[in-house]
């Protein structure tokens, strides 16, 4: 009987409840999205750290580690001046350091400092060890700006550039570069904390919003409840009817919020970083629980409203 009453009531009031469910579900989904994006940001940050390039420079080299780019440093004369020539696999070197900028195309890369000092522009021809070479200019912001970088296989290895997830393994054998580490954590903490607080504010707004929406609905069902009372339904039955309706709405809202969170966080992360969301198991649980809590509070408020209604007046048409 109660199940039928609830189902009928929900069906008849679908046009009224649907916007309410969607409004609360979307607010919850916004909170879930903010949390999911905040948690997924750690992965985005790790991906973006690739721009840092080599994070270990080995100067004591017994063996070139896998993925490492070996460099030999030689001295040579260029345009009448002494320069340091770095012999390395240039393609691998540039792939490892995506932030480095190469101006022009050429057979050799003149570091920006060398180019400025010798007045070399991209595309210029220079004579190096008897051969004429076309020069491109490398702006790396590192020591390589003072080298002339030539593609080749190093004979003697003076240093190895390495991008590794375990830089600690190489401490003591060269320089471990992690200057962005502290800034990275501060940044990540800022993003996560901001989005967590935004999420908290959104959750509170969702709850208050649900309460307000129910407050507007209160009183519109006086005639319906009056008729039910006249037919013998007790306050307890009416209470169960309202609570059951709100429980069904809560479950529906939780499910919609969960789906919307997945869709919205996927959209945000795909649009901004091309990655899929990484959702903590606690987030769906939080959405459903908060949905239940919101609608239980709303249902309780609604019941309070019912108690104040004078059914007899309604039946008399006053």
């Amino acid at each position, binding site marked *: 009987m109660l199940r039928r009453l609830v189902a009928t009531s929900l069906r008849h009031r679908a046009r009224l409840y649907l916007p309410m469910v969607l409004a609360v579900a979307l607010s919850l989904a916004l909170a879930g999205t903010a949390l999911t*994006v905040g948690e997924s940001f750690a992965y985005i940050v790790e991906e973006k750290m690739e721009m840092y390039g080599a994070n270990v420079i080995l100067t004591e080299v017994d063996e070139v580690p896998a993925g490492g780019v070996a460099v030999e440093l030689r001295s040579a004369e260029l345009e009448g001046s002494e320069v340091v020539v770095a012999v390395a696999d240039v393609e691998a070197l540039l792939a490892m*350091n995506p932030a480095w900028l190469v101006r022009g195309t050429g057979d050799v890369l003149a570091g920006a*400092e060398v180019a400025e000092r010798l007045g070399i522009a991209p595309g210029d021809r220079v004579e190096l060890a008897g051969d004429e070479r076309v020069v491109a200019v490398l702006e790396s912001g590192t020591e390589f700006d003072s080298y002339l970088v030539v593609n080749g296989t190093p004979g003697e290895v003076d240093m190895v550039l390495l991008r590794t997830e375990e830089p600690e393994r190489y401490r003591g054998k060269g320089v471990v570069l992690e200057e962005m580490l502290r800034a990275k954590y501060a940044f990540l903490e800022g993003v996560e904390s*901001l989005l967590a*607080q935004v999420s908290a504010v*959104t959750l509170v707004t969702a709850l208050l919003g649900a309460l307000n*929406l129910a407050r*507007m609905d209160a009183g519109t069902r006086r005639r319906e409840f009056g008729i039910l009372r006249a037919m013998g339904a007790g306050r307890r039955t009416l209470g169960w009817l309202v609570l059951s309706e709100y429980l069904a709405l809560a479950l529906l809202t939780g499910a919609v919020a969960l789906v919307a969170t997945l869709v919205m966080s996927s959209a945000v992360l795909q649009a901004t970083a091309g990655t899929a969301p990484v959702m903590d198991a606690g987030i769906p649980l939080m959405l459903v629980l908060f949905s239940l809590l919101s609608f239980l509070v709303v249902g309780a408020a609604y019941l309070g409203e019912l108690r104040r209604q004078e059914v007899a007046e309604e039946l008399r048409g006053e």
Partner: protein
Amino acid sequence: MLGFALRLVAKTALSQRYRFAALAGSIALASSLLVVLAVLYLNASSLLAVELSGVPNLVVEPKKTPAGVPVAELSADQVPALKAREHFWRNNIQNAAPVLLAEGNAGGRELRLAGTWFRREVPSENGSYPFGVLEFRGWSYTGEPPGEGMVVLGAAVGIAQPGDAVEIETANSTRTFRVAGVLETGSYWDSYVFLSLEELQQMLGRTDIDLVLVGALIKPRDELAVRAELYGPEALSPEEFEAWYCSPYASAIAYTIAEVVPNSSVRVLRRVTGVQEELLRASSAAFLVLFAVSALVAVFSILSAVRMYVSAKRRELGIQRAIGASEARVAVQLGMEVLAASLLAALLAYPVSGTVAEAISRSVFGVELSSGLELLVLSLAMPPAASLVALFFLRKELSRELVEVLR
């Protein structure tokens, strides 16, 4: 007509005060949320940029002749020029430290020495500004504040402990210093011993410096900035050059520094700026999309509130129609009620969103928001605008409902 409608609105607001207050409350809540998010997201990128700018990302060096000799000496006296009025991007300079490099030894062990400012107040337009290696927030210093006769060891030096005495010998002189603490930079500087610039200059008999480390707030590169870097700013049209110069790209800041520090060459530390740019780009884009989603959610919440309000008043509005009020008149009255509720909501949204946004900003970034005007404009404009959008979407449904009631 207007007076009558206003009286009706006033009467409705009073006689159905709970429902009217609930509508105003719903609009205020959704608008406040949107205003809070807008203000936070607008400011978040620049506040997060500050977190990322805690390490040097530019290096100022003297221009050199083909033989590698500086064209002119670089001096520590030129560092305040970075914060001077003449420097276009002075407000984006977060920190700078002059460095004089030298070699020395302590107890037979070879050392790399860097004479620098530990902490120094540099005058700027708005008072003074703390510069120095200990002011790079991405670097971590442990120890007592270094003073005269003290050195700071890079994290990889390991020749002594804080409090120990170290005798440092250079080509010209020998002096004993006390170790004040250890500086962890996560870079080449970890293998340096930092001395006061003036003390190292005295030991070496020099007055110049070799470079200046600069930490600047930058903007991620776009197509214009990439073009300026690949082909040089001189390859840009005058309009493009102006747009590039007036945007805080790392290359544009480097260009303006070279303008105020004559005979200098400014190197962009690309490994650092590359990461900073990528992180700022990702976070800005995420905030923008999140804001768009929030705006949709807020408008939908207001739409739902207005929908509930209209539904609750169906009977009353139907009676008005039945006694001869035109559909337009009913719509105007309803519009005025919603507008009145949204104006009340606007008055609530301003203090609420201001307080919440300020609290979050303090808690996350530890700074006050400088967006009073944005907050005021958004708080006052958002509720009526969103309510009108909601009414626009509900107009057909309202008309249909009234017809149903009249039947």
